């Protein structure tokens, strides 16, 4: 069985990365949603990586600098730091990478990955920043440090203008009628304040990614 605990790797200067699945077969870089959506999507992403591993696909799941297990503070980072981190991740895998699987705001960084791109519900930098600002206003916190996420001008500025480049296979939920190659039933876990899992959605997505990766 390939199912099991993920392997712990690192990239760059002590940044964290997990590896799932076989070293043979297609290898994909997983780009997580940004900010609070990353935490909300954790269970879905773990289930997706295990599902891909079960389908013979290797997955590499980095925490971007300043997120997750990163030793660096988010407020010290710029958009360039994130863009430059992605090739470091690819180099650290030590294997040829077929392309990327990006969720939500992760799609804003997948253009840096050489190869093919698959996306779930991509969003724009402007939308992510609007969400952060409104959440800060709603919680009575300072909009300059929205919901505990302090962004440097070097991150917030370029992020506001960032949009996902075309040329990707795009999957959305059936409730979202923006352009997509495939629509699937599921819970938008990235929108729910209480962490939620959706095992059926993870399986649907793993099936589509596996077929796409092996095509």
């Amino acid at each position: 069985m390939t199912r099991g605990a993920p392997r712990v790797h690192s990239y760059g200067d002590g940044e964290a990365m997990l590896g799932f699945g076989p070293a043979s077969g297609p290898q994909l870089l997983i780009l997580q949603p940004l900010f609070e959506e990353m935490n909300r999507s954790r269970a879905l992403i773990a289930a997706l990586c295990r599902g891909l591993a079960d389908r013979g696909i290797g997955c590499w799941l980095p925490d971007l600098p300043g997120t997750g297990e990163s030793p660096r503070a988010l407020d010290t980072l710029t958009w360039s730091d994130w863009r430059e981190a992605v090739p470091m991740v690819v180099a650290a895998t030590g294997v040829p990478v077929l392309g990327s699987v990006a969720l939500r705001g992760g799609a804003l960084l997948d253009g840096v990955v050489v190869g093919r791109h698959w996306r779930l519900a991509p969003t724009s930098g402007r939308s992510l920043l609007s969400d952060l600002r409104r959440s800060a206003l709603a919680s009575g916190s300072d909009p300059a440090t929205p919901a505990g996420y302090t962004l440097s001008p070097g991150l917030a500025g370029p992020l506001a203008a960032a949009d996902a480049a075309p040329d990707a296979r795009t999957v959305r939920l059936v409730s979202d009628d923006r352009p997509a190659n495939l629509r699937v039933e599921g819970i938008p876990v990235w929108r729910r304040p209480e962490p939620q899992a959706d095992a059926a959605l993870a399986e649907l997505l793993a099936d589509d990614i596996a077929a796409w990766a092996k095509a």
Partner: protein
Amino acid sequence: MTGATATIEDQLRAILRDVLGVDAARAEAIDDDTPLFGAMPELDSMAVAGLLTEIEDRLHILIDDDEVDGEMLESFGSLSAFVRAKRGA
């Protein structure tokens, strides 16, 4: 559902389902008179943030912070009227 046939109301119901976790049967029962903010327990001030952003993204409008008030979110009818006016329909 496609962009060509879905009404603004259909799209708003879908967004409420997604953002608030309202089930399909409850979402279908929402009409113009359904009260929203202050009446729907899932719609707290944090959920409003997600609701507004999804409305912007899926209905292709921009909402200023000072346009958001109790009146706009009072009922499903007032929210859909706001969106319709924004779209210039």
